[in-house]
């Protein structure tokens, strides 16, 4: 078996009496899209937050590329190669789309304490950012400040920033949300390519997309994993139908 990129073992997180994450263990192996689905409030974003380093788990460990990262800060994990997108868009509002991506690129290259060399004339950064924006279909909007982008465009920029980090794995929290049917279609084929580059832990409510993309699906309900398996297994699992999928429309 291939060595997993990311391993969660026995993660536990409570908010007061609420167990948001209840003994969750899962892995992400190279080349796969691992979809994490579950009802609203099941604890998916909380789990992503713990992996990314925003929320400290009460117990359990997170192993990333063979290293225990449970105690590291968000920034440290990002530098190790964890790239995340936010469920609610989180961008640098005054920066143009291009500069947002450049920021991610520069952070990946390190040297944050370079005080004197001008970035704006850094050809490498600019070209790199432009290439990534082209990849997500935002080339034409590169110089628009991100505050002035429409909702859907911001979602695309989120993806672009995650790409720029060239991470060893992607944590994508509802990347399809807010995208039109057209956009979802594009993104699906895009993610299909992307997983070759790095495996993806995908949280998504758009089931058409999930079923089209996922190699494995884990279902979270009330913080617990109730099922895990292939698309077919999950699609027909009665517990999942009841808790999450509802009647096929």
């Amino acid at each position, binding site marked *: 078996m291939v060595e997993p990129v990311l391993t969660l073992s026995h993660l536990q997180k409570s908010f007061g009496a609420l167990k948001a994450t209840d003994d969750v263990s899962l892995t992400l192996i190279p080349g796969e899209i691992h979809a994490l*689905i579950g009802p*609203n409030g099941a604890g998916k974003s909380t789990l992503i937050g713990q992996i990314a380093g925003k929320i400290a788990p009460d117990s359990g460990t997170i192993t990333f590329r063979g290293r225990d990262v449970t105690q590291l800060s968000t920034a440290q994990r990002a530098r190790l190669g964890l790239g995340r997108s936010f469920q609610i868009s989180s961008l640098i509002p005054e920066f143009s789309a291009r500069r947002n991506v450049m920021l991610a690129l520069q952070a990946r290259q390190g040297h944050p304490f370079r005080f004197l060399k001008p970035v704006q004339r850094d050809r490498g950064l600019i070209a790199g950012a432009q290439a990534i924006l082209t990849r997500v279909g935002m080339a034409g909007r590169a110089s628009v400040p991100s505050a002035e*982008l429409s909702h*859907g465009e911001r979602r695309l920029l989120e993806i672009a920033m995650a790409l720029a980090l060239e991470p060893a794995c992607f944590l994508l929290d509802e990347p399809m949300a*807010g995208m039109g*049917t057209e956009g979802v279609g594009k993104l699906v084929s895009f993610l299909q390519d992307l997983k070759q580059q790095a495996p993806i832990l995908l949280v998504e409510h758009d089931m058409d997309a999930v079923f089209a993309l996922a190699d494995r699906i884990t279902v979270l309900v009330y913080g617990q994993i109730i099922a895990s398996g292939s698309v077919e297994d999950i699609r027909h699992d009665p517990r999942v139908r009841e808790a*999450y999928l*509802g*009647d096929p429309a």
Partner: protein
Amino acid sequence: MTDLLRVEGIEVFYGASQALFGVDLTVQEGQAVALMGRNGMGKTTTIRTLCRLHAAYRGQVWFAGQTITTLPSYKAARLGIGLVPEGRRCFATLTVTENLIAAARPGAWTLERVQGFFPRLAERAGQQASTLSGGEQQMLAIGRALMTNPRLLVLDEATEGLAPVIRQEIWAAIRALKAQGLSILVVDKTLSELKPVADTCVILERGQSVWSGTPSQITPEIEHRYLGL
């Protein structure tokens, strides 16, 4: 049937850049209208303008028989426009119940009824809104708009990020609300779910209303041309 909301030829600017170039739209009493279009075409801008959160540079908005083009937004809301905004925008530091109470105006929708409608909001009553899950926040935003006892419910991407079961519930709820006589203006990305609810569809393209008709009139050709399918 009378027109509850009528939008005529509105043009809107963000700073120096124009976002709307003439949008027309009518919602009749008791009707559900769907506003459609690709990303960035101006749906949200249209909605913000008719809720008076953004000023129209040109054009008129009438609601319930009076022009509201220059009314402050709180007055427009008091006339009966209930907004579920894009991105939810719950009051982050308030509890769930406080969010609902903040919006309350007298009418058929009370705290109990809203909590009955979305039981999850009763379960999470004392929790701070910022810590709710995305879907819970969405429910809260709808519940909050209902608490204002609106005549027209305006939903901008109200099912975004919701689990399929909940979405089905929400669509059912929207249908139920419509059946109770509430007028509805709705923006959503999922056409398959939108079509059964809408009486009329209006399509925006680059800040202009370019097509309108009943859902059944939407041909594959139109879908391809305006919605990118």
